[in-house]
């Protein structure tokens, strides 16, 4: 029977079908971080059991960590407590921890791929909704709650209902200055924040297959923002090339053997999806969100919709009140206070290159606070090696140390109440970047252009240097 990519990988991991429509799914890799793991460790202790397969767990501290002076003790007492608890738990149970100060530390969804832990055909989970990122490699990767973190710790398995399948195909050629972030914001604006609920999405089409691994990760990362369980892209030469030679990737003959298997991971021609959507790459323009959920993306040159143009006028009214915007307002030219470049969506080396390439020789607007937070220690080091840190500093951008930072403001990187922040992160929910903060989601290129001009602009209006990515 013809199968989808998702079905091929899922079927490889079913231990057993359980009466009542659930399946026991075996999990190959379990990432943990400090926020969603402590209660799971407590659960394991309370049951008096040990962790079943500790070698399949990779831990890092990312959500709470400061992005300045990481060598000093964490100032926020509660953040410190959580980071310390992770360290203690990993010590007690014998789990590998890439904690603060470790050369591999970083955002969990950045370090997994860059270390070669994330590989095609795997099942990967983490107590974090953006685990969907790892689907870029053709893995089944999804976020779970803390009770499930405990389940995986106890048994390396989860009890799950098999999700439905969806394929989103984008054919055609992307215009200049259009990046993966624009693609996914465009898709979510079409499907809505609940449009993918219950489904596992496969992204396909020439516009997707032409993307780098970093760009594919950006797309899969935000699958959850349309409610999807996860997103995945069939592995190809771009994938194999990326994985090859990384720390935990198979080596030599083992790698060749793996590639032979990975090459079988694609959707068969006759396979049927529960839902299908098709878009044209030519229709996608630089995007920005105006509202308080990631489904509110519009062209950066566009206007905020009118209440009679939306399904939920009450919701629009409430979100515009929060954002300090009017119906029908043009966003271009609006003054911006902060620019945040970072998060598991857009903090990889390619994102930093795009920004550096654009701001080289320019200077940020005086009133803008521009912060760049690399996704990992390794990204930070690579940026230094390439001289990106110097370019950014000259342009007036502050390059911080790695972590989740102002994406969700669990550390001290918060946006003040009522101020506008153009952000390369994934969520513009009320208060996400700090109580009262007003977030607008964009691509790294658009963020860079806005930082320079100090107001919302279309990056394509300015000279775009050819990128050697």
């Amino acid at each position: 029977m013809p199968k989808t990519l998702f079905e091929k990988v899922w079927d490889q991991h079913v231990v057993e079908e359980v009466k009542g429509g659930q399946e026991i799914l075996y999990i190959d890799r379990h990432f943990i971080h400090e926020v969603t793991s402590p209660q799971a460790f407590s659960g394991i202790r309370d049951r008096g059991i040990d962790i079943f397969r500790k070698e399949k767990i990779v831990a890092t501290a990312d959500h709470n960590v400061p992005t300045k002076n990481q060598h000093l003790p964490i100032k926020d007492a509660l953040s410190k407590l959580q980071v310390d608890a992770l360290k203690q738990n990993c010590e007690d149970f014998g789990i590998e921890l890439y904690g603060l100060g470790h050369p591999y530390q970083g955002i969990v969804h950045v370090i997994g791929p860059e270390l070669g832990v994330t590989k095609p055909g795997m099942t990967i989970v983490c107590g974090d909704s953006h685990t969907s990122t790892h689907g870029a490699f053709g893995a089944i990767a999804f976020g779970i709650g803390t009770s499930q973190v405990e389940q995986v710790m106890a048994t390396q398995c989860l009890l799950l209902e098999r999700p439905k399948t969806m394929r989103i195909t984008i054919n055609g050629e992307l215009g200049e200055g259009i990046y993966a972030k624009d693609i996914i914001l465009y898709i979510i604006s079409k499907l809505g924040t609940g449009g993918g609920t219950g489904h596992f999405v496969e992204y396909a089409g020439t516009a997707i297959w032409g993307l780098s691994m970093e760009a594919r990760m950006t797309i899969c990362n935000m699958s959850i923002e349309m409610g999807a369980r996860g997103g995945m892209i069939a592995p190809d030469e771009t994938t194999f090339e990326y994985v090859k030679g990384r720390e935990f990737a198979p080596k030599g003959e083992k790698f060749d053997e793996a590639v032979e298997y990975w090459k079988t991971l694609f959707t068969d021609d006759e396979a049927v999806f529960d839902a299908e959507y098709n878009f044209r790459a030519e229709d996608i323009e630089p995007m920005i969100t105006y509202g308080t959920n990631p489904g509110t993306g519009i062209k950066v040159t566009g206007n905020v919709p009118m209440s009679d143009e939306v399904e939920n006028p009450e919701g629009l009214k409430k979100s515009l009140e929060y954002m300090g915007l009017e119906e029908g307002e043009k966003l271009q030219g609006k003054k911006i206070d902060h620019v945040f470049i970072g998060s598991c969506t857009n903090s990889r080396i390619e994102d930093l290159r795009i920004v550096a390439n654009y701001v080289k020789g320019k200077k940020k607007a005086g009133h803008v606070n521009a912060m760049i937070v690399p996704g990992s220690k390794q990204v930070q080091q690579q940026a230094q090696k390439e001289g990106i840190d110097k370019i950014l500093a000259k342009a007036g951008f502050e390059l911080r140390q790695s972590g989740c930072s102002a994406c969700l403001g669990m550390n001290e990187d918060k946006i003040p109440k009522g101020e506008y922040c153009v952000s390369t992160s994934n969520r513009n929910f009320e208060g996400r970047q700090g109580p009262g903060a007003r977030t607008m989601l964009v691509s790294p290129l658009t963020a860079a252009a806005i930082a320079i001009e100090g107001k919302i602009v279309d990056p394509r209006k300015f000279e775009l240097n050819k990128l050697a990515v």
Partner: protein
Amino acid sequence: MEKFRVLKSTAVPLPEEDVDTDQIIPARFLKSTTKEGFGENLFRDWRYDSEGNPNENFVLNNEKHSGKILVAGRNFGCGSSREHAAWALADYGFKAVISSYYADIFKGNALNNGLLPVQVSDDFLQKILKEVQKKPSTPIIIDLPEQTVLLEDGSSESFEINEYKKMCMLNGYDDIDYLLSQKDKIKAFEQQHVEY
């Protein structure tokens, strides 16, 4: 986990759609290493102003409305996977949520914590919201064995729930007990499972 059979209670109306878990419990309150006490900060930024004073317009501060059931707009619980959202609702005293659509992870988290997510039609949800707003003392009956929601005027709607999850809720079982009992099968699976 507590057993859930039949719940009769008044309800708290929250008609907003797309309520995300950052609203249910903002990230800055996720720093605890235990499961207790999150109810205090449930809907924190809607419930209190920036000085910490109760916001009178928010339903949890409205004396007229109370109860063990939260009736919420479509697509409840979207966004972050934080189970703290389910813990906060349960800690506050809710035993069930009624909505017309749930985000997947929230739904799973709720079920794993004995908080029943009841999914009804959009029309029936609007009817419940209207009834509750008109008459806050009106009781709602959620009958899990029968899988129905019953209103005071006698109208009702049935809801669906995964058969296994229903059994867990009725008996107060959690998934880990079950999975632990399957360890031999899991070990056998590992013998033939190839990971590259």
